[in-house]
């Protein structure tokens, strides 16, 4: 049986990479990539269809190509990429509703894979150290991308109730980093002086862009229904990440943070939503046991390795690279041990 996969959001990095790799996958016959603008990069043998998922046209595309699998990558994280927050919300929420409406009508549809985010757990002082997939947020996200993801997941749940015959996999990805992807977190760590929240140091988890795509491919070509957290192993503290990136941090008192965030936003240096400030204040951790047992996926990069790959690709850490620091320490130890020998 031929397998026809429709991927939304292929003009952005992750969606495009996924479409390209799926088109080269032996278990997949045909890939249709959908987005409002043509992808700036090659998507290999995937067929590009210029369409807006907010438009019922998408239903026609699905039935004419008899699509059996839909991978929804069309949830946009950065308002600048969508042309403003209201346009972003429109694409994320209305787009998902339209897409799911088309999926519900489809007679060939057998599988839905949705890229969501661990931001649906929110972030706050009363959070458990690690969220498992069945825990409810203790501080529900109230705005921005995180709230869009919560709404998208809500519609996906509704869809899976109405179409129990369709296998639904929802992947909640931790913050994606890597040498090529551009996200608001990448912009943040690229600032020469990184603003942090005074008196707080948050726990961060990252997933490497290649692992994120691989996890989505695993969910697409296999039948692994359910909600699964995806993150690289281990944790990185915000202060530690800033040091590994060779940046200086500027702790700012929490009440002043909105002012600084607005200034950064206006200067175009980094996009600082209130949601992101909450995340940088309280951090978040997710449990990834189901990623291994249910999805059967093991990331190649740990959280630290994923972050380091981004630092290396952007040549951020140039003042005191770790190799130089280690060499310096070895010199000091050598000097001290020789001194010790002489005095002994």
């Amino acid at each position, binding site marked *: 049986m031929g397998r026809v996969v429709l991927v939304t959001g292929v003009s952005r990095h992750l969606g495009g990479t996924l479409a390209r790799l799926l088109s080269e996958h032996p278990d997949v016959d045909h890939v249709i990539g959908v987005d409002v603008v043509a992808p700036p990069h090659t998507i290999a043998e995937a067929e590009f269809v210029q369409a807006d998922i907010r438009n019922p046209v998408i239903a026609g595309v699905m039935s004419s190509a008899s699509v059996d699998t839909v991978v929804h990558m069309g949830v946009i994280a950065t308002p600048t990429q969508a042309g403003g927050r209201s346009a972003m919300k429109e694409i994320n929420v209305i787009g998902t509703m339209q897409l799911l409406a088309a999926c519900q009508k489809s007679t060939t549809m057998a599988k839905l894979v949705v890229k969501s985010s661990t931001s649906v757990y929110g972030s706050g*002082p*009363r*959070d*458990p*150290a*690690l969220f*498992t997939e069945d*825990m409810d947020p203790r501080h529900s996200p109230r705005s921005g991308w995180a709230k869009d993801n919560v709404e998208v997941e809500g519609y996906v749940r509704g869809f899976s109730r109405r179409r129990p015959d369709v296998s639904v996999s929802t992947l909640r990805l931790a913050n994606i980093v890597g*040498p090529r992807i551009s996200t608001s977190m990448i912009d943040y760590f690229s600032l020469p002086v990184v603003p942090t929240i*005074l*008196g*707080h*140091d948050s*726990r961060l988890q990252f997933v490497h862009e290649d692992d994120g795509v691989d996890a989505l491919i695993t969910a697409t070509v296999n039948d692994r229904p359910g909600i699964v957290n995806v993150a690289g192993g*281990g*944790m*990185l*503290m915000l*202060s*530690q*990440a*800033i*040091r*590994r990136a060779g940046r200086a941090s500027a702790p700012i008192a*929490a009440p002043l943070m909105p002012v600084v965030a607005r200034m950064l936003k206006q200067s175009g240096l980094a996009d600082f939503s209130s949601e992101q400030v909450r995340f940088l204040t309280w*951090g978040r*951790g997710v449990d990834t046991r189901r990623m291994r047992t249910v999805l059967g996926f093991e990331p190649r*990069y*740990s959280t*630290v*390795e994923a972050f*380091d*790959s981004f630092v*290396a690709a952007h040549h951020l850490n140039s003042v*005191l690279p*770790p*190799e130089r*620091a*280690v060499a*310096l*320490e*070895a010199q*000091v*130890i*050598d000097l*001290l*041990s020789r*001194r*010790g*020998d002489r005095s002994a």
Partner: protein
Amino acid sequence: MPEAEVIALDPEGRGPRRHVDPAESDLPQPTGWEGRLASAVGFVRRRITGDYEVDEFGFDADLTDSVLLAPLRPLYRHWFRVEVRGLENVPAEGGALVVGNHSGTVALDALMTQLALLDEHPAHRHLRMLGADLVFQTPFVGEISRKAGHTLACAPDAERLLRAGELVGVWPEGFKGIGKPFSERYKLQRFGRGGFVAAALRTSTPIIPVAIMGAEETYPMVGNVPWLARALGLPYFPLTPTFPWLGPLGLVPLPSKWVIEFGEPIRTDDHGPAEADDPMMVFNLTDQVRETIQQSLYRLLVDRRGVFGD
């Protein structure tokens, strides 16, 4: 074949950066004060380059051992002259729940217990404490608590730590315990809602009662200013014989002599995890733990030769 320099290169050139820690290499290592200086240099290098690990709770063992607990050690040894008894009741490995009485206005008793287990237990165990919401909401305090290995008192975290084989510490009296007036010293308050017992039952880990004598007299709370506490968002605003009358000097604790006594473990594995959902069972076991600690305290107080003397 010429001998090539060994560089750990990832075949795809995008793996993690790796290097040998000079303190763990085969190079000759200095001793004496040079050795101490060398390890300090190593510590600073690891901090500056972010080359250290934290666990999933944010526990930073390197920082805790070298920096956070260091200023407490003189207090432990010379000021309170802490005497530890019953360390053999604390297992060398595997999960266990340490439950103690809480007192003394500031939670010094919890920190001294952490230090006792790290420095004096043969297995040098880290005590992972469960703290109140307020601890983690407060800037600096919350940050340092997480780095010192503490986490929020909630069932998922308690069970995760116990399942991972960690030694978990709880002070179920909470603020009712440390913020009680001096006249009620060594009278145990209500033991929360028994959540800690349920966590131990669910994970079949033993409960180790610990009685701490001496902490009550460090900052004797003779009064409370409720309106000031409300204004500052604190559970109480303490008045002690020295605070706030003597200013910063009032922050110096009184040098009481301390005894920390670990009691015999109370087993939970003969009950079965399902009994964690039986409230009567949980209440009874909670009372048993509370009564054990109260009796140990009374016994310690009877044998006490003086509040400040040895």
